[in-house]
């Protein structure tokens, strides 16, 4: 018989992981994130199994966890194949587009958000400007403005764009 408070600690971690997976599975809308949350629930159960295995001094829990690893592999193969097929039909991973499959007496879910909304503007790296203007430093004595000076001048006088 092992250490009971130690077992309690591992079971608590397993319970928290399982609950987090449940919350994520119920509230997220991306098919893949939902599936990841199901895997998180499996992880919570695995921690519990290994905790009991150590507590009882028996291989049973670890053997169970090995089987659940194999099951997770099989599950991932089938579920990802399904996700790829679903994605081919709708070109999106949104679970809401499959709400035709809901129960007959349930009202449909209506989206309230702006479909064009994106997470944030992409941030491009900014390099320090230095050196001469391209193509201008090659002729000696011709034009030795730096890029900063050239840009500053261009602000004042509009550049003539050559027609092709």
């Amino acid at each position, binding site marked *: 018989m092992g*250490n009971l*408070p130690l077992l*309690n*600690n*591992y*079971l*608590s*971690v397993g*319970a*928290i992981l*399982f*609950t*987090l*997976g*449940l*919350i994520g599975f*119920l*509230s997220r809308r*991306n098919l*893949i*994130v939902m599936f*990841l*949350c199901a*895997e*998180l629930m499996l*992880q919570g159960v*695995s*921690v519990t199994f*290994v905790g009991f*295995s*150590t507590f*009882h*001094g*028996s*291989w*049973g829990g*670890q*053997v169970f*966890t*090995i089987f659940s690893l194999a*099951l*997770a*592999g*099989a*599950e*991932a*193969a*089938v579920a*990802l*194949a*399904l996700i*790829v*097929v679903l994605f081919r039909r709708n070109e999106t*991973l*949104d679970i809401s587009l499959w709400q035709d499959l809901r129960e007959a007496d349930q009202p449909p*879910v209506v*989206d309230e*958000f702006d479909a*064009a909304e994106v*997470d944030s503007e992409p941030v491009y790296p900014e390099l320090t400007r230095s050196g001469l203007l391209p193509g201008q430093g090659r002729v000696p004595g011709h034009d030795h403005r730096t890029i900063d000076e050239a840009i500053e001048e261009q602000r004042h006088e509009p550049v003539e764009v050559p027609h092709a």
Partner: protein
Amino acid sequence: MGEFELSLSSLITVLLGGLGVYLLLPRGTNSTDRVARLVGGVLATIALVLMASRFGSVLPVKTNEVIFYVLAGVSVVSGVLMITSHNPIISALWFALVLLSNSGLYLLQGAEFLSAATIIIYAGAIIVTFLFVIMLAQPNGAAPYDLHSREPLLSCTAGVILAWTLLGTLNYACTYEAKPLAERPKGSLLVALPSQATVAKSLATHPESIIHANKPHVDSLGRTLFLEHYVAVEVVGMLLLVAVVGAVLIVNRDPAKLTAA
């Protein structure tokens, strides 16, 4: 102390954590939502600290205790960040961190093979397949439907109820088991854990299932797997084969093309 009073002590922790996760769940990108996420993060951290203080100093070795706290903390925090991050790729990476810290927890409990298998199979193969499908389907990061969760309040309420039930019961069962048999309260809903003699008796009929600390680890695990559970191993092998064939057939809609080629 009754069962209900004891489990009340864990209610505050669970409620705080649930509220934190509720605020952290994606709800758009404007500035008030960012503030909500910040507040949610603070609340979830407080809940985590309360939870850790509830564990108390119980582990036999001090070093192991510290390692347990670090690994369990990393595991739970990455779990929260996984279910709340906007970008599915980031979610998958946080899940990989959950797996790494979980395999550390297995290692701490002397399950070396399982620890290695988790990293190799889960983090090495399954997560990579996930990332592959995410890159294939959604290469631009967060989509609009990733920024809005569905019914976050209801799902967090369900989560709080589940977590309170589990943790409260665990808390109570731990104090219940710690008492000698005569002092345990009568009429409890709990069934006592089997006594040492009962476990030893049931393990005696399956001698390969007993963990001996001085025997080689993988050797005895393999013996258990292939002597005690050989039918299950065969069934799981069959299941994997069926799953692979099924996955191939699901993705290729026209099986005639497969055979023609």
